[in-house]
């Protein structure tokens, strides 16, 4: 093969939108029409999907394991909640403040997290989240402690769409923010920065030898991931007009890890689809059996990890490869 005939398109096309992706983003519209009475649940799914996306950026792409990602979610939730409870009820201003606050927390803690191995990182992220939980628990004057933060009042979105009783505005608001940030994350993972994150995950020891400042890159993505999580937390605070202490709980961090593994880490759609599958299953199973629903969820997880490596998205990839192979065989 010569330079003149070399085909660059596989690299150039990597970031193009696939038709299946466009179809995927019609799902929120379909869900709205099919389940008009479940908008609260659907809004929760959109928010959790964004939260899961933020973990995917740092874990799936950069390989930083975290069992304390709720720290940033909760920090953002309290930041937005406190802002609105103190008279600044503009939703977008709340998102911005939450993003900045969580990003700052992410940046500062990144230096602690990036020291050491995976196990150390698990412990450090866990520890930071636990400390934050107890701080929020203790500062009852500010956060309401276990009673939760109340008195959040939102002004209409863009000065026009007020948050209605049926949750329509809340739903479209959450979906729009999810989509925009998904789009930005999609650009990021296809950029040189995103490629270098994959390089770090695949072979961290080689990266300095090609001149890449590994810790600076990891610190940057950790900060971005924290900002995403903070925005997700802010969305929850704004759409429910309440912040419960459990936004910072270990359970939330651990469940998020579960969702990402279920969907397939290292794929942006894995994060979103994992959330849809997990929360739908949660909803259906707990309806059927309010006491023992976790049994079936546990069974689902074990099956996924054993038989569908890389989660739902891994299976989708393998199936489409197999189908592609068969098509080639027919020719």
């Amino acid at each position: 093969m010569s330079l003149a005939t070399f085909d660059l398109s596989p690299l150039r096309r990597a970031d193009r939108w696939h038709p299946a992706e466009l179809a995927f983003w019609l799902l929120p519209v379909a869900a709205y029409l099919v389940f008009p009475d479940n908008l609260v649940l659907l809004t929760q799914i959109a928010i959790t999907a964004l939260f899961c996306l933020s973990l995917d950026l740092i874990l799936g792409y950069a390989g930083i394991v975290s069992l304390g990602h709720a720290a940033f979610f909760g920090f953002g939730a309290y930041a937005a909640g406190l802002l609105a409870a103190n008279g600044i009820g503009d939703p977008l201003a709340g998102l911005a403040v939450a993003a900045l606050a969580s990003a700052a927390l992410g940046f500062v803690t990144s230096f602690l997290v990036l020291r050491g191995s995976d196990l150390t990182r698990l412990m450090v992220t866990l520890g930071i989240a636990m400390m934050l939980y107890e701080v929020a628990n203790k500062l009852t004057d500010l956060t309401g402690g276990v009673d939760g933060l109340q008195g959040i009042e939102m002004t209409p979105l863009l000065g026009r769409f007020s948050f209605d009783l049926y949750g329509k505005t809340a739903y479209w608001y959450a979906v729009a923010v999810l989509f925009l940030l998904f789009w930005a994350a999609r650009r990021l993972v296809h950029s040189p920065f995103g490629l270098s994150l994959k390089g770090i995950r695949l072979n961290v020891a080689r990266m300095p030898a090609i001149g890449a400042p590994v810790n600076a890159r990891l610190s940057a993505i950790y900060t971005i991931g924290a900002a995403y999580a903070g925005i997700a937390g802010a969305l929850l605070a704004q759409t429910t007009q309440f912040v419960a202490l459990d936004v910072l709980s270990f359970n939330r961090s651990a469940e998020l890890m579960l969702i990402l593994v279920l969907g397939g880490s290292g794929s942006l759609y894995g994060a979103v689809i994992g959330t849809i599958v997990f929360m739908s299953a949660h909803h259906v199973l707990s309806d059927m059996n309010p006491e023992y629903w976790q049994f079936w969820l546990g069974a689902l997880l074990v099956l996924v990890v054993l038989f569908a490596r890389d989660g739902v998205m891994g299976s989708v990839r393998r199936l489409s490869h197999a189908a592609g192979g068969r098509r080639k065989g027919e020719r």
Partner: protein
Amino acid sequence: MDYALQTRNLAKNFGGFTATNNVSLNIEAGARHALIGPNGAGKTTLINLLTGFLEPTAGRVILQGEDVTRLGQHQRVKRGLARTFQINRLFADLTVLESVTMAVNERLGVGARFWKPVGAHHQAVDEAVALLDSLRLLDVAHATTRSLAYGKQRLIEIALALAMKPRVLLLDEPAAGVPTTESRELFESIAALPRDVTILLIEHDMDLVFRFADRISVLVGGALLTHGTPEVIASDPKVREVYLGEAICA
């Protein structure tokens, strides 16, 4: 004399074990310099000290007249020092073109750009393609690294180093694990590098060393035994005794 890379009394101890013992090495600019020595002589440790992969216990590393002893690996790379690894350290799930483009990105300083896609950074992509062409790797450019034979992977190891446009290139047994026929081809690629690139080579195959190098340093027990032209080294009785033995007599 212009030196590309020097060490001054470089030492490295691992606990009580001295892996590098008071090494003062001078590598001339443009040299094809080989570093030889029996197994366990501390060759790879020395390379790791030169590149900043390890921190020395004592001594200094000087790159093109600048003391880089305190600089990290990626900072030395930015100053023109690149290396390959004895055992492949590649990006298994990336394609060959992605891997090399990523390396070029870093050299061009666009590695942290986060908005425009990789393929839109034309300068980096074009350069990566040209590099793959020069190493005759274009036909596997879109293949994932893990799908390639070991010999080809060794070439990618070198491509990643060359993407740094190094002034000084450290090759740690580049032909290790490569079939003889392919290793010749590999060394042709290395020999074809521009003369102004200084090369420090670690290699076990004495045939290759004596064909390739114009200077040889012999490392024994972590210390520098001697150095000189291939002729001098080949006729040095000390070297014969500790290392070469039959390889030269035969």
